[in-house]
């Protein structure tokens, strides 16, 4: 009833607050205040067009009552927590000291106990107020299970007495006992009886429990005594004994087993040879397409977008080279043996005992075979299949004829030699830290052995094996290049070894394209720089040495020369260009080097069909060297050749009759180092070979550039030279054939071409008047132009608003408090007045009574 009254007294506005959107109130014109808008803005929704001032005020007051008023009432009445611990507010003490002091105080306090002289008793440790010592004792005895079982059980009587009310119990009891005793018992008696009963029950339960405990303990002891006898029994059996589960049906077990059995995983279908070939072709096609794209120069922009580098050899199967830790197949005692860490361990051992091993060859050989198979698996099998039957003579011929076939010539003997090489070498090598280390490592070995050494070094220091290996191998690439350069500059140059080392170099390059790129770049830049310097000082520079030529060739093997722009190949192009235009040709060696450069240049552009003016100039110049009569030429030779002068007859045959004894064979690269031919006939033969190569290159150029618009103009000087000046009559027949072919290929008259026009441009679309969309952060006045200024203004505005709001709130708070205080005062005054009135009233009655008494007495 009271509650109801209160709700009524709260008034209408409070009601609104409780039921927020009471529609009748919102419609009540006396409650609603309409904020007049000055003008309408289309599409703008305003929250504040209709206000309910009464509602909101009452809400605010209520909120204040709940928060501010409470605080006010409790003002100066709250407890304060004062930390009385020792040294709590003493900033001079360090924490350690503080703790020490506190500890001593604590000890002192315990020392002051009453039972100070009781030596036996230690300080009692407690947990949740219970003695820990007690608890320890209990653990032995009390079984938690038995407790929990009883916890939930309450006797019916107990519940009845506790909750059913006294009356029920009384009635029941009385109904039951009436006949037996016929004597109504008082409530007191009944309760006493109940208590006794329950106590008795409890006791019984306890004794029962103790008995059970004793029994189990006894059982345990008995068990322990016989446990020794059963020591060998399996734990499973033990469990079976203990858990008395029902025996599972065999059928069920079978079903379950079948259900849980792993289903056969679908293995990847073995690919047929055809499929493999198709896949390979597809891969090559994508790579080729990629190469063409780079050639066109489109990829340059895209390169920035692709984040992950995909190696050219990547098969798009997610296989990462860095994570390559496949276990290699090996045999042990005629059985397969999958070695992983074992192998490494072995290798480590070998490292230690490397020297020993070399001594006792027999022992090592046995182990070697294991290693060998790993190494050879890739290609040796193939080679041995094809090449084992070949004989010496045949093979060399074949090699010349069909260069496309895989290297099919590895004889048994050679293999044996390789095996021997492997046998001699230790398995692990330290990664060379400097160039001289590498040189020492490789120097005194055959080329096959060097390959094996490098292979093993690479394996030992694979990046997946240790953290520092990557850097080591990256350095190794640079050293290898240096080593190759050294081999090429030797006299005589050891180019076979260089050739043999190519797979290793290539493998390293595939592993670390960046490092390889850097290394080649450095060499190119160094050589280019030195050439530039000699040019500045002397005006002419010598032709680059064989090491640079080999490096350029290796670069072409490692990197694609057809790219529109390539960090290695573009400088290499420029290097060749520089060499072909600025390096003096003063000897047959220089001619040879120049020809090698021309071959390289042609190789570089053969796919992309890019024009290389220096190449054509140089070929023209070389042919010019073979012209004996240099007057009245219909062409101009450019640097480094001159029309006349010293060294302009380098390729003129001294004796034209030697051409009969000449036959075509490839020129040795070593001649770039030093021409071995001494006799005049040999020298003339050499000249003829050079001219032959030169003509062949020209022929290749004509077929390469025949689609260019200025094809005829480009080859016009060469044509003029070949037609009128070259002494073809004195040359052997193959050369004459070549000469004729070239002349046939170059048209006399330039071909016709359509005049140039600009590319058709896309039509420019009309201007469309789409509205400009500007993001509006805040409505209202906009000052400031930049984003920062706008943001600043917005924040300032917000701050101002907030400040005003806070001020208003404070004002309202103080008003509210003042009001409350006044109310207090008023109510206090009213109370006082009431009490005074009461006193007056009582006094008046007293007075009245007293007067009445007096009047009575008087009467």
């Amino acid at each position: 009833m009271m509650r109801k009254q209160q709700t009524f007294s709260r008034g209408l506005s409070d009601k609104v607050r409780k039921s927020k959107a009471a529609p009748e109130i919102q419609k009540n014109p006396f409650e609603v205040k309409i904020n007049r808008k000055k003008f309408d803005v289309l599409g703008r929704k305003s929250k504040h067009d209709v206000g309910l001032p009464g509602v909101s005020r009452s809400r605010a007051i209520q909120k204040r009552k709940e928060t501010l008023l409470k605080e006010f009432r409790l003002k100066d009445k709250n407890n304060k927590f004062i930390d009385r611990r020792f040294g709590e507010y003493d900033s001079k003490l360090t924490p350690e000291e503080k703790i020490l002091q506190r500890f001593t105080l604590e000890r002192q306090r315990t020392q002051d106990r009453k039972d100070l002289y009781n030596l036996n008793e230690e300080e009692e440790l407690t947990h949740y107020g219970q003695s820990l010592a007690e608890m320890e004792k209990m653990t032995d005895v009390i079984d938690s299970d038995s407790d929990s079982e009883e916890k939930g059980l309450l006797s019916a009587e107990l519940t009845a007495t506790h909750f059913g009310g006294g009356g029920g119990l009384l009635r029941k009891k009385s109904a039951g006992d009436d006949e037996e005793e016929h004597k109504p018992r008082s409530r007191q008696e009944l309760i006493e009886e109940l208590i006794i009963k329950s106590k008795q029950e409890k006791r019984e339960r306890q004794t029962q429990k103790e008995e059970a405990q004793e029994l189990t303990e006894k059982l345990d002891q008995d068990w322990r005594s016989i446990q020794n006898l059963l020591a060998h029994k399996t734990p499973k059996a033990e469990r079976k004994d203990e858990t008395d589960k029902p025996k599972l049906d065999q059928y069920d077990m079978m079903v379950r087993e079948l259900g849980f059995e792993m289903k056969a995983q679908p293995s990847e279908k073995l690919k047929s040879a055809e499929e493999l070939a198709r896949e390979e072709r597809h891969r090559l096609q994508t790579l080729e397409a990629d190469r063409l794209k780079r050639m066109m120069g489109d990829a340059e922009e895209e390169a920035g977008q692709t984040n992950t580098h995909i190696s050219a050899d990547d098969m798009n199967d997610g296989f990462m080279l860095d994570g390559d830790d496949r276990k290699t197949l090996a045999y042990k005692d005629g059985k397969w043996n999958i070695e992983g860490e074992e192998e490494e361990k072995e290798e480590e051992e070998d490292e230690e005992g490397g020297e020993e091993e070399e001594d006792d060859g027999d022992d090592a050989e046995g182990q070697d075979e294991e290693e060998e198979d790993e190494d050879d698996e890739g290609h040796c099998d193939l080679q041995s299949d094809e090449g084992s039957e070949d004989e010496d003579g045949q093979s060399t011929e074949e090699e010349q004829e069909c260069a496309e076939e895989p290297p099919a010539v590895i004889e048994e003997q050679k293999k044996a030699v390789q095996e021997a090489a492997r046998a001699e070498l230790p398995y692990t090598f330290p990664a060379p830290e400097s160039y001289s280390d590498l040189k020492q490592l490789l120097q005194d070995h055959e080329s096959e052995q060097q390959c094996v050494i490098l292979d093993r070094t690479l394996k030992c220091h694979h990046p997946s094996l240790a953290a520092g290996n990557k850097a080591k191998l990256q350095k190794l690439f640079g050293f290898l290049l240096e080593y190759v350069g050294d081999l090429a500059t030797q006299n005589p140059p050891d180019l076979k070894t260089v050739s043999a080392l190519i797979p290793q170099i290539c493998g390293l390059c595939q592993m670390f394209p960046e490092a390889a790129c850097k290394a080649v770049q450095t060499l190119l830049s160094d050589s280019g720089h030195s050439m530039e310097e000699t040019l500045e000082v002397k005006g002419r520079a010598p032709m680059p040495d064989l090491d640079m030529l080999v490096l350029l060739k290796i670069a072409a093997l490692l990197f694609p020369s057809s790219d529109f722009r390539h960090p290695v190949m573009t400088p290499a192009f420029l290097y060749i260009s520089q060499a072909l235009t600025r390096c003096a040709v003063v000897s047959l060696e220089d001619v040879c080097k120049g020809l090698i450069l021309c071959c390289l240049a042609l190789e570089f552009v053969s796919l992309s069909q890019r024009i290389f003016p220096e190449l054509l100039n140089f070929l023209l110049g070389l042919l010019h060297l073979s012209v004996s009569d240099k007057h009245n030429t219909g062409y101009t030779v450019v640097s480094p050749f001159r029309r006349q002068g010293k060294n302009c007859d380098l390729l003129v045959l001294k004796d034209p009759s030697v051409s009969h004894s000449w036959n075509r064979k490839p020129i040795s690269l070593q001649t770039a180092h030093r021409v071995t031919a001494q006799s005049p006939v040999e020298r003339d033969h050499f000249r003829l070979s050079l001219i032959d190569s030169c003509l062949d290159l020209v022929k290749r150029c004509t077929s390469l550039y025949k689609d260019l618009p200025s094809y005829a103009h480009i080859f016009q000087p060469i044509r003029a030279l070949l037609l009128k000046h070259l002494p073809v009559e004195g040359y052997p027949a193959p050369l004459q054939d070549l000469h004729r072919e070239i002349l046939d290929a170059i048209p006399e008259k330039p071909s016709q071409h359509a005049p140039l026009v600009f590319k058709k441009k896309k039509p420019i679309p009309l201007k469309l008047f789409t509205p400009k969309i500007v993001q509006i952060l805040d409505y209202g006045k906009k000052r400031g132009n930049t984003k920062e200024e706008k943001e600043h203004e917005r924040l300032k505005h917000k701050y101002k608003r907030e400040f005003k709001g806070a001020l208003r709130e404070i004002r309202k708070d103080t008003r509210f408090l003042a009001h409350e205080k006044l109310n207090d005062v008023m109510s206090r005054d009213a109370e006082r007045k009431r009490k005074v009135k009461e006193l007056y009233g009582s006094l008046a009655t007293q007075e009245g009574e007293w007067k009445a008494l007096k009047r009575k007495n008087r009467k």
Partner: protein
Amino acid sequence: MASSTESNVKGENSQVSYKKVINTKTVRVLQNKKHANDIFDIIEYLQSEKDKEIIFASNACSKIFCQLFSRGDLYVGDLPEEEDLVNDDRSAEEKYRIFMRHRYSSCVELLLENIGHKAFQVKETSLCALMKFVAAEGKHPLQNLDEHFNFPRELLQTVVEHLLSEKEDMSLLISRFQEFLEMDDVRYYVMSSVRDNIYRVMARNKKAVIPVYQNNVFTLLSTINVPSEASKLKKFLVKQDYKLEEWKVAKPKEHKRAFEQMWLVFLKFKLPSNMYKKILVILHDSIMPQMSDPTLLIDFLSAAYDIGGAISLLSLNGLFILIHEHNLDYPDFYKKLYGLLDPSIFHVKYRARFFHLVNIFLSSTHLPAYLVAAFVKRFARLSLTAPPTSLLILLPFICNLIRRHPSCRVLIHRPCTAEEPCDDPYVMEEEDPAQCHALESSLWEIKTLQKHYHPDVAKAAMKINEPLTEQEDDISELLELSTFQLMERELKAERKTIPLEFDTPTELLKSSREVLGVHFSLE
């Protein structure tokens, strides 16, 4: 004599002894006229085998004679023969002076000879001693010529004569001599004596080319710089006391004239071709501005221009100055310029200078369209043999020309007759730009260069595919570009990915597109 016997006694002593001997004798000669004969011994040292002795003796001689000059102990006037002295009735004092004067002239002769000595140190000290004599003689003239200003022209002339040797390269000594050329009077008289010397030498050699001599002359001439203002002419070796204003040497105009005459005389004769290059390189900035009338060089320049090759290219610079600043009318200038264009222009050292000038010559917008088109077409044709560094200049240059002369746009855009293939009407062999039909042609060569191996060149060539932008390309910073710089630019460019060749090679001479392996073998 005593000194010679002494010096023969012991090798190690000689070094100290000759110094002692020369020193004591110098002192004795100067102290007392009685010991005048000791001068013979000193002069004899000038002919010694040992360089050090010559040097020491030269210094001693210069010391002695300078002192004698200041004392007035050298005979003034025409020198009588020494043999006549014996029966002459002159005073002893006078005889002494005549004697000393004879010793002086023999000393000078020996010193002049020593200019041609092997050792540079000897040359240098001799030259210095002689120049000291020049200064002393100027102060105390040996001839009584009142009306003339005192300057020992004869002595200086002989010095110059020996400097400009016909057999030996004297460039080192000449650079030492440069120090004296800072004196205005020395310079003036050197200039006039050089002029006379060239006349004489060339006449003697019947106007043939004498490379060593001409090289020496050039070295000397190129060190001479005429000061531009009169106020600066104050540095004289020989101080003149009066009528300074009337002295020729004090007038900068005279200096300029002497300078001009000297050069003109030098250039009048036939020169070796490398000398042409040397002269032309410095002509425009160190010779022409110092001449009073540079137009006089026109003969030389047009002769050089007609030689052809690099010399023609270089003479362009001088011609340009004459045409531009001195109103020279040069008939068929552009025709000749057109004739200069051949494949070698891209390979010469002066490529940058040439392109700079051609750029200036063709910058006029008043040139006829046929001419510009002829140049453009010829450049385009030549670009087929040019190295990338030149192409990087040439392609923007061609684009610039087409921008400047919109009527040449047909070279890269001829829409009316499109789709009809035709021959190239341009005639490369035609020497007259008006007759070569360049304006009817198209730049297929640039189209060809779009397939150039260097990416930047290909990109530059691609520009003709679309209408050219209004803004001209700046080629000035490309002019000095070298191949190595291009290389470095490529090497330094940051690249994220490095594409690799996907065919894994197995051998050095085995790849998918092998050319090297076809012609060469490993063995």
